[in-house]
């Protein structure tokens, strides 16, 4: 009988969908079980969690992007306030 448990390579392939909660429940359980036992994959998970934390904090939004969004908000506010001149 073959071992149905996913190996490190398979877990690496599923890891992003696991962390983004885009994976189905049975697979998520398999990944979770593997991550509990495997130090190496656990380290990978921690790295990606940290990356996700930093990116989702908005810290990683580049200055030029933040400035563009600021200008666009001002544009939106003028539009809301003054109309489109039509």
């Amino acid at each position, binding site marked *: 009988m073959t071992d149905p448990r996913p190996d490190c390579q398979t877990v690496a392939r599923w890891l992003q969908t696991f962390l*983004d909660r885009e994976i189905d429940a049975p697979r998520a359980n398999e990944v979770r079980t593997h991550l509990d036992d495997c130090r190496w994959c656990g380290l990978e998970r921690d790295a990606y969690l940290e990356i996700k934390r930093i990116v989702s904090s908005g810290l990683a939004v580049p200055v030029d992007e933040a400035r563009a969004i600021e200008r666009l908000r001002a544009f939106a506010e003028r539009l809301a306030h003054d109309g489109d001149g039509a």
Partner: protein
Amino acid sequence: MTSTDASRTERFRTLVEPEVGLLYRVAHALERNGADAEDLVQEAMLRAYRSLDTFDGVNVRGWLVTILRNAQRNLHRRTRPEAVDPDVAAATVDPVERDPALLAERSDVERTVLAAVDALDPVYRDTVSLVDVDGLTYAEAAEVLGVPIGTIMSRLHRGRRQIRDRLATAGLMGLWVAT
């Protein structure tokens, strides 16, 4: 100001303004250039403003992104070929600058992640941001960018992998774990 104008102002503020960041990131992923993305979002916001009265209020993001994509098609109908495959074409990378004073306050791990994000192909960066900053699901990201879900997955995988490799190269793997 008539009452219709007042309610339109209010609806625009509540519905459209909170999505400016998302619209910019979608536009940036489509245009691959900051200035063009900004023009496109302005045009989309004008169109959204004009069609607010007929919008039923359901699925604001879907509505806005449809407007944005239509605006993009019109803007480029004459000037350039429709689809440059961002996963194949070389990127026109906008220079990224960061405030050194703010960077100095960050940890080594954070600085390294930021540098890695800045170095990403803009399409990878925008896809990662749409999922992690704007909170889109894979299906939503695929829909707004007009690509298959598999493309979203591979962009996320490759983008994050590049960031992870920077951490590894810098010898920072595991250093965020308080020991």
